[in-house]
């Protein structure tokens, strides 16, 4: 049998295959990151970390819509310093796995402080700047204004040598925002974040989420995310990380063909469990075999 290469590289981050764990899913604790890697993710993204601990929104914070998942966790996290301390306590296991630290903030300086703290500890293989949490306005605005995007990416790249992934959502000025991010030091663009959405319980006669609005993920948003990726690949020469509703190996192939170098999986972990990573990798491998691809990189952007 021919040797098959599934490995991809994004800046200095080497991945043994293109399928990683998305931010926000299970990444509250280092123990779960280790578990996701053991289960087959090629890299894991932490929950978005902020400078101070955040309890997030009060319950209810999630609604299972079957065709997708609605969440409004609200960037709950123990704060970057506590998180790093806990990672250091598990240093042996953590340093062996590719961990991408996700950062969220409310002002440029928050991102800068968090980025320097994380970089100093030497546990991160990359940073992902969450500029687009759809239900936290102070964070979302960073991806709605190219000037703010430019400021934050520029400021962070001045304090770290780690690759910087910029996570963006579905916004009207997305192309301008991506241009600003790329120009000021983004090593890759992660797209898309969840899409602002809501649900009303007709018996309770009110929104289910305590914060009213949340973010929609899962199969419902896959075609939207795919079209964003496709368009970004047309417009920019920067590595793309596709995220949004990937739950079957066919979805992985579609995203690669649209132009993603790697993909992230979130909601499918809820639907299928951590075994989803092995399922996706073996599906991708089988497809490549059937179609005669020896290197996964040959799939990237092939649909253009």
């Amino acid at each position, binding site marked *: 049998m021919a040797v098959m290469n599934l490995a991809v590289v994004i800046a200095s981050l080497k991945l043994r295959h293109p399928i990683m764990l998305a931010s926000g899913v299970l990444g509250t*604790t280092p123990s779960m990151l280790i578990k996701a890697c053991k289960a087959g993710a090629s890299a894991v993204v932490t929950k978005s970390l902020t400078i101070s601990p955040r*309890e997030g929104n009060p*319950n209810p914070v*999630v609604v299972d819509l*079957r065709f997708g998942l609605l969440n409004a*966790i609200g960037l709950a996290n123990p704060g970057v310093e506590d998180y790093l301390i806990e990672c250091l306590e598990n240093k042996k296991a953590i340093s062996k796995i590719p961990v991408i630290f996700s950062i969220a903030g409310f002002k440029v300086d928050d991102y800068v402080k968090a980025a320097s703290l994380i970089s100093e500890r030497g546990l991160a293989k990359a940073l992902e700047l969450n500029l687009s949490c759809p239900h936290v306005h102070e964070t979302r605005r960073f991806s709605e204004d190219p000037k703010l995007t430019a400021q934050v990416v520029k400021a962070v790249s001045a304090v770290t040598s780690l690759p910087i992934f910029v996570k963006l959502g579905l916004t009207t000025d997305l192309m301008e925002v991506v241009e600003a991010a790329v120009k000021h030091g983004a090593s890759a663009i992660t797209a898309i974040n969840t899409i602002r959405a809501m649900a009303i319980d007709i018996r*309770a006669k*009110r929104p289910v989420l305590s914060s009213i609005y949340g973010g929609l993920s899962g199969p419902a948003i896959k075609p939207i995310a795919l079209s964003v990726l496709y368009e970004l690949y047309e417009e920019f020469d920067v590595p793309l990380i596709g995220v949004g509703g990937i739950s079957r190996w066919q979805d992985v192939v579609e995203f690669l063909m649209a132009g993603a170098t790697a993909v992230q999986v979130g*909601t499918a972990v809820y639907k299928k469990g951590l075994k989803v990573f092995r399922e996706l990798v073996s599906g991708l491998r089988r497809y490549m075999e059937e179609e005669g691809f020896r290197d996964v990189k040959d799939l990237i952007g092939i649909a253009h």
Partner: protein
Amino acid sequence: MVARYYFECVLKEKKREAEGLFSIILQLNERKAVSRMKPGRFVMVWLPGIDEFPLSPSSYSYEDATLRLTFKVRGEGTRALASLNPSDKIFIRGPYGKGFTIPRHDVSQRGGVLVLGGGVGIAPLLPLVKVLASSFLKLYVICGFRRAGEALFIDELSKLVEGDLIVATDDGSLGLKGTVVDAARELLSSKNISYAFACGPEEMLFILHKMLSDKGIRHQMLLERYVKCAIGICGSCVIDGLRLCREGPVFDNVTLSRLKEFGRFKRSPSGSREFIT
């Protein structure tokens, strides 16, 4: 196909069980939520505009489509729950989690089965005691409270296990003077116990886990953590890589002995560690 988000329930009855402890009986308009109930599983209780939190029922009936929730008033959510009146509506989703596994008969043939409850921790054990009482020959229940005024379900438990109910209070105002741990130590020295179940404060569970493990007694314990999504995605209830809402809330002795966080710390809603001792 759009899922229903919640089961609508009507409060049928409310009872003050003890100091700061209440039971409410919820009438569901369909049996679905109850049909998947089993001892140790839990539901998410939603009080619109106030809070949503997990509770493991203290009894349930498939025939009547009812659930009884017993809880201690600890915060805004439970205070609001305690102030509801008959015919008020609330909402639940679930049940979630794995619940207790009833040991095979050959395990209990070798000795008695012991159920240990600390404080309001006895509530989710009641449905288990009911199942065990109908199928096992020798069943002991130990429940402990700080004082007589906080004791609950004594009558219900006496009916189920008769003379084999041991009540302990810290101040001796009811039953034995001492803790659940004291009473368990005493019982284990005189009786042959082959299996145990427990729920209560984690300090207590941790000591019991050590004691039972030292004696080679297999056991299951129902733990508590801050639950947000309850469907296994947010990670807020994770203990050493296991999600309480999916892989728990009941863990067996083999799992418990591997958990480094058990007995050490819980996590706040932010995920920060709150050390127990």
